[in-house]
């Protein structure tokens, strides 16, 4: 099993990317590439499902920021879903909880 697997499916409200693994210096760029390839229409909501996120460092955060920008540029929104507790803590420290739409992991 590779360190990062991304699954994509399209929901009624927009694309959903399910992230399983590590968003770090080596692997996060793969997520960035996928986000860039997505078709995003105005009014849609890009959901990044982080329920299976194992690790996120500054490169991972950069990729989430880039996804956020991409959504905005397309006139769409971005939501981070099922954010693990540790990642949420980091997002709070850096203040991105005020920028991203975040749905914490309900099991946390």
């Amino acid at each position, binding site marked *: 099993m590779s360190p990062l697997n991304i699954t994509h499916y399209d929901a009624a409200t927009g694309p959903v990317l399910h992230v399983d693994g590590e968003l770090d*210096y080596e692997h996060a760029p793969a997520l960035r590439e996928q986000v860039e390839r997505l078709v995003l229409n105005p009014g849609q909501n890009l959901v990044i499902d982080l329920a299976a996120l194992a690790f996120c*460092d*500054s*490169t991972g*955060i*950069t990729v989430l*920021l*880039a996804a956020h*920008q991409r959504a905005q*540029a397309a006139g769409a929104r971005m939501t981070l879903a099922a954010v693990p507790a*540790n990642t949420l803590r*980091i997002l709070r*420290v*850096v*203040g*991105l909880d*005020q*920028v991203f739409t975040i749905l914490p992991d309900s099991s946390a």
Partner: protein
Amino acid sequence: MCRTGDGPEPTEIADAAGTNAAFIALLEDSAEELYESAPCGYLSTLMDGTIAKINATLLNWLGLRREAVVGKARFADLLTVGGKLYHETHFAPLLRIQGELRGIALELKSADGRRLPVLVSSVVKYGGEDEPLLIRTTVFDAADRRAYEQELLRRRQEAERARAEAEQARGEADRARRQAEVERERLADALAVLQQSLVPSSLPVVPGLEAAVHYHTASPDRLGGDFYDLFPLGGGRWAFFLGDVCGKGPRAAALTSLTRYTLRAAALHSPEPAAVLTTLNTVLYEKHAAGGDPRFCTVIFGTIEPGTDHDRTTVRLASGGHPPSLVLRADGHADYLTTPGGLLVGVLPTAPFSTAETTLGAGDTLLLYTDGLTEARTGATRESLFGDDALRAFAADHAPSSASGVITALTGLLESFGDGLDDDTALLALGVPATHPTAHPATNQPR
């Protein structure tokens, strides 16, 4: 079986007779026979090459009839065109001058168009007045020899080619290796120079303060993403900052460099912490995020002003998405100095930064750190992270502590993490001395 009689046996008589007969037959062999049936070709020509005499062996090889050749053809006519040219330019002149020529390789052309590789030797016969009369030539079949020679030639050419290729390959490999070494050295030099520009080479001496630092990059050839600085603003006031850029490697280093110099410039211009971070935010945003390539850092920037009354040292700081600084108090407490609402720097066109303020008395120490410390993996299985609470508890255990004291303690702690520490870590401590107001030399432990 024993011999009974004293004469030869019948079979022996027959053998002797047989041998004798062969011998006699040889003696009876005329010169003519020997000439015509020799195992080689014989040829005699006039000086202009006209064939005067030729033996049967050669005629058979050529598939020619005597009548067609004698007095009618020249020696050169029996050769291939290339052979004719060679004959005219080398063979004939040499023979004229020397009177003799041996072992020249030529090719004869037979009547049915086949080529016969031969070796030719010729001798000039002179008359009584030394005038050249005729040329006597012997022709040997050299087919096998020629095949062997050609094989040798071919092998030699192949060997030459292989050798030349090997030479070339070796030359290229050498060049590549030398090139790689030069590149490696150049890279190492560049990295060393670059690394030096990211953090100060040593901390300055601040009157009324003790400063100490620990700086560790996770891997030796990766440039660290953490940065810090401590510099005078004039009028007894000093500025400090400590932070962490996103990413790793040269791109991160470029960001670090930009960040450090922007902060310094902004601070010297107008040192209010929130304003400084706002300036940095604008610079980073416009350079990167605005173009669709968001890059950010987290940083705490602050000013510190040791008072003339050495008990009071004012600290004002702002944080851009960075873990909060810790204050170790002389009374043994340790508390976080938080600045709620700060956002990491460089991702939005306008970002909020709030300021916090505190005063340090004698024996108090301010500690800034990067998340390499709090994110270090600890525990038996390295599963859990060290965390904020553990850090505060650790700090409280060590309070009160001088700047160098807390740095030393934390360095020890970091070392105890062993391979749980896989990130860059920077620690900066600024402490008001507990007793004397004289400046302590800055304790510098950059790694």
